[in-house]
């Protein structure tokens, strides 16, 4: 069974007042906050029932969570960021314009900046869905277009200076 709801008021600062209109908690009014808060429980967890989202942020959040593995869901719930393992190192998604890349073959991490086209028109969770899928399915494209910074230095246009063995491996696969 799924839960429906209506939005009663936008309270600002990413907070929305909703009324549950179906399911065992019908009639209850809740303030929900779904943007960039640490330790926030999802509404599904609070209600113990699946929620039928009708707002863009809710729809996008539900899709993103469905794509995360168990460890990533734990991280997303706790920190609103999650790590993605690639054969070249670990990439942390969840902070816009501030993606961390820890390469396997180097001690020093990179800061990366990659976004989907016209990303301002997407709910934030869709941005991470977009980047997660590209990173998993076509990492060569991800590292080729990413702007990058190492240490306190200036930002550089992509591609990211991966170890030559990594680029060779990527090109051989694609």
């Amino acid at each position: 069974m799924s839960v429906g709801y209506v939005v009663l008021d936008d309270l600002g600062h990413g907070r929305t007042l909703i009324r549950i209109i179906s399911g065992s908690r019908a009639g209850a009014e809740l303030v929900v906050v779904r943007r960039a808060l640490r330790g926030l429980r999802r509404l599904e967890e609070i209600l113990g029932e699946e929620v039928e989202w009708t707002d863009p942020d809710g729809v996008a959040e539900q899709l993103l969570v469905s794509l995360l593995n168990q460890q990533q869901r734990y991280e997303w719930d706790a920190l609103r960021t999650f790590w993605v393992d690639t054969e070249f190192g670990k990439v942390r998604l969840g902070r816009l314009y501030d993606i961390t890349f820890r390469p396997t073959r180097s001690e020093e991490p990179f800061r990366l900046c990659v976004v989907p086209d016209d990303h301002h028109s997407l709910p934030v969770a869709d941005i991470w869905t977009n980047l997660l899928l590209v990173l998993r399915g076509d990492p060569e494209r991800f590292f080729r277009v990413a702007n990058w910074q190492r240490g306190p230095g200036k930002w550089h246009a992509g591609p990211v200076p991966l170890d030559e063995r990594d680029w060779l491996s990527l090109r051989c696969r694609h």
Partner: protein
Amino acid sequence: MGTMRVLDSTGDTAVTWDIEDEEAIRTAEAHFRRLLENERRMAFARHAGANADEAELIRAFDPTADEILMVRPIQGG
């Protein structure tokens, strides 16, 4: 029933088809091609409930896929 979810400002817009319905498949496939060719979208197929580790980059419409996710091209920010 297959579903193609196109990421957009509403979260996503879904296009569905029944594997027995050739017309619905043709319509979905034409939409898929437009998104790939005109908008340079990338497509990922997954089985129901599969996470991103199991999603597969596809370049042709697959009517047997449970779900196809159409994401936008990416660029340095």
